[in-house]
């Protein structure tokens, strides 16, 4: 009986928190057939928002993957003073509200700060443009790749890497042929988590983007802006599209995950 009780509790919890809201969005969106849905998503603003989201999320994922692998290797395979501090810093974005992140970025890179002013003098605009949005997204996704890889690297140990070295492999060869295949599944999972998080990021991007329609408007900002302007149809359609992309990428990792060795 206890087992049934637990199931009921978990399912009810999920029903009210997850299934019902997302299901309702789907139902609302397709309430009048697929026509309005397609129309709402093919307006110029919607398409542009798609594009901005893809560019920002794409860059953020690429940067975070590179940084994440590097940081994880540093944390697991090397000893240096301040290692615990670095580890704590990497988790910071989980604790800090994205809005704070956005404001902090404006303080550093805004046109009236020394760094921002210097860059602006050279024609590089960070805040209210794509680089700032990429920065904000990178920041909020920072821990995801690192934290997916670290336990796998720890469990793997460094004996395989040392064996490769004694067999003549240099640093890059060892990484590409031994380390990377060992962490591939975890890395893939971390990348998808980052992608899903990057696609859905709202707070930090809202602050640094300036929310200019057709310029710095991402899909999440588009959802919010349409909703505020009583264009509920477009808002729901874009929200559903976001949810579908996120779910699809999560499913993709499950399918892509290779059967480990055996």
């Amino acid at each position, binding site marked *: 009986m206890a087992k049934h009780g637990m199931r009921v509790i978990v399912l009810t919890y999920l029903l009210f928190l997850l299934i019902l809201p997302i299901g309702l969005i789907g139902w609302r969106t397709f309430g009048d057939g697929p026509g309005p849905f397609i129309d709402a998503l093919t307006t110029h603003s919607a398409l542009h928002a798609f594009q901005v989201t893809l560019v920002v999320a794409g860059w953020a994922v690429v940067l975070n993957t590179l940084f994440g692998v590097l940081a994880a290797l540093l944390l697991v395979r090397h000893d240096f003073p301040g290692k615990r501090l670095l580890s704590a810093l990497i988790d910071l974005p989980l604790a800090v509200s994205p809005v704070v992140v956005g404001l902090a970025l404006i303080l550093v890179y805004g046109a009236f700060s020394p760094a921002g002013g210097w860059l602006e003098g050279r024609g590089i605009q960070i805040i209210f443009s794509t680089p700032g949005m990429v920065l904000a997204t990178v920041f909020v996704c920072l821990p995801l790749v690192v934290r997916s890889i670290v336990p796998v690297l720890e469990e793997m140990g460094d*004996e*395989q890497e*040392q*064996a*490769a*070295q*004694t*067999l*003549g*492999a*240099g640093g890059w*060869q060892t990484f590409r*042929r*031994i380390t990377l*295949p*060992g962490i591939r599944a975890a890395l893939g999972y971390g990348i998808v988590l980052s992608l899903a998080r990057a696609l859905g990021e709202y707070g930090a991007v809202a602050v640094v983007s300036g929310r200019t329609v057709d310029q710095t408007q991402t899909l999440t900002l588009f959802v919010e802006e349409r909703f505020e302007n009583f264009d509920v149809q477009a808002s729901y359609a874009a929200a559903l599209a976001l949810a579908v992309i996120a779910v699809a990428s999560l499913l993709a990792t499950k399918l892509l995950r290779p059967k*480990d*060795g*055996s």
Partner: protein
Amino acid sequence: MAIEIRDVNKSFGEAAVLRDVSVDVASGSLTALLGPSGGGKSTLLRVIAGLERPDSGQVLISGKDATRLPPQRRGVGFVFQHYAAFKHMTVFENVAFGLKIRKRPKPEIKKRVEELLELVHLDQFAARYPAQLSGGQRQRMALARALAVNPEVLLLDEPFGALDAQVRKELRTWLRRLHDEVHVTTVFVTHDQEEAIEVADTIVVLADGVVQQAGAPGDIYDNPASPFVMRFLGPVTEIGGRLLRPHDVVISTEPGPGTRPAVITRVVRLGFETRVEFQVREPGEPGEEHPAWAQMTRESAGRLSAEAGTEVHVRPSVQAATVPAS
């Protein structure tokens, strides 16, 4: 000399793991680094491989200074206690790894790997993954992988430590035979004195980061340089303030030159050998007794008609190797 180690020192933080260690390994020999755990033998092996860098001292491989060379340029093969199998590669790919890195032509790789797999009796398993092999098979694969690149020296870090007793004994004999076939200079680390004596032709006893003694197994067994080496290489007992092997104890019913009175406390028969335990009385120290034991054949124990309570007289045999007990 295939490997010359000169005054190597290595510490991890405060702890000195190797202290002024100098060892010579002859070309083509099979050398055991023997010692208790924490004695520095694995660290020494890793220093030879280049996986650890010594704080001071020199490592020469085939006469060339290798102290500053990274592991991939030393020409050593290394076998790890826990195999370090490449989990995502088949047995064939594991063994081929070093050759692939060296960009050898494919047909040559295939031929060499097949040769080696035959040598280690794994030719049936080329397409399997390490997870599908037993511990002994994985270790043989690791050995083939290390041998594939024709290393100048082969280093094995407690190669049989993770295997069960039966497989261990088999692999031991097999390693000795393999070495007689391949003749590559081999150094292996072990804490098992029986393994070292059975397999190696030279033993280096290492404890507390210091070389205690080096030499042929028989030599070290018969002429231990210190009580520590004597205790570590086999069973010991103490008579008259000196350590000796229990099979070097002579028991007689009558007193003679150099004997000490003793009372037998227990007689244990272990197959062909008999273990006689007794309390020795030291002359000049009345009331002082200490336990000791002797190992003898069943026949000589029978001649003595030894049993608990019998008064006897004990002494070291004439040819006994002894060292002061402290």
